């Protein structure tokens, strides 16, 4: 395996450094990139499954998106800057997405990770 960025867990829990995962996320990221087009946002809202099928997502990927399982989307190679576009269609705060990935409730996440007084 070439390159310094394929080493697993060189820096814990940073999916950006996992090349296999990044490459595996191409479809899911392309689907989410589509949401910068207003027509696609309408299609996504009207029939989410059909929209996901259009981009050839497999069952695992579709389930992750349909259930808004952010941690799972990232595990499947979704890059946050793509999947954030889902939050433009179906609003959720980025700190909630963060908390979900960290496996914390929102308040604990704000306090323990971001140092907010909550």
């Amino acid at each position, binding site marked *: 395996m070439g390159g310094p960025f394929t080493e697993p867990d060189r820096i814990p829990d940073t999916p950006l450094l996992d090349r296999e995962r990044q490459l595996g996320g191409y479809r899911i990221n392309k689907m989410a990139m589509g949401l910068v*087009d207003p027509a696609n946002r309408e299609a996504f809202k009207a029939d989410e499954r059909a929209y996901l099928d259009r981009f050839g997502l497999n069952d695992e990927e579709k389930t992750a998106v349909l259930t808004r399982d952010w941690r799972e989307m990232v595990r499947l190679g979704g890059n946050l800057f793509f999947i954030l576009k889902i939050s433009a269609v179906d609003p959720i705060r980025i700190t909630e997405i963060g908390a979900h990935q960290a496996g914390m409730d929102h308040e604990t996440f704000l306090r323990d990770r971001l140092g907010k007084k909550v």
Partner: protein
Amino acid sequence: MARLVGGLGTSHVPSIGAALEKGLRDTPEWKPFFDGYLPARQWIREHQPDVAVVVFNDHFNAMFLDRVPTFAVGCAAEYLPVDEGWGPRAIPPFEGASHFAWHLTDTLVENHFDPEIIQEIKVDHGLQVPMELFWGKPSDAWPVKVVPIFVNVLQYPIPLPDRLYALGKVLGQAIESYDSDEKFVVLGTGGLSHQLQGARAGFVNPPADRQFLKDIAEDPDELAGWSRQRYIETFGGEGAELIMWLVMRGALNRDVLVKHQHYFVPASMTGAGMIVLENA
């Protein structure tokens, strides 16, 4: 010849633009953050730069993974705000400094850099937010022309920190060799510490951020020598975009004066920093 009047560093968190749009500027949550930029805005009013070279990254809004340039120079006449999912933001288009951008591209290629040459693209919050922070949102037109430099900080391999520092040095040469009376500023944007994805999401590192704001002025060669991994470890997966400040720093002289600086944490999920530097 053209003159580089200063280097500006700033975070470019999208929530900053959203906060302004929602009228949250003077809420207890945001007021201390925005107030930190007041001296910088005063500095801008005093120096009236004609051209801002803005070093930033597209966050997969105008570019997709099909083609990711290591870095790219915008030579267009105009840049419209891109639709990031909520529709394009209601801000004026940015006028490009096209003639200088071609001169920069020529200079880079002559100095063994390999830019992508851009003639048509839209720009996301990575450029918009810094412009609003330093210039304020104008009613009709921005009072300064822009040259966007897009850097890949998201699709590995991202460039080495010292490559970006060297890019900044050539940028400085290009400004100094540009036959014009215009005044230039260079903006390094992104960071400071944050991580948005993975189990380490929410990581911030305020002590490292404060040290960075000191070192970027006093010891940039040290920061340029860090590995990409060390940036990620220290500043988080997305905080590593801080390497873009090295382009701004490289354009300045070895010795600089810190005119203003500010730090605030967290802005959304990010350690947010600002600095205004002038050549000593």
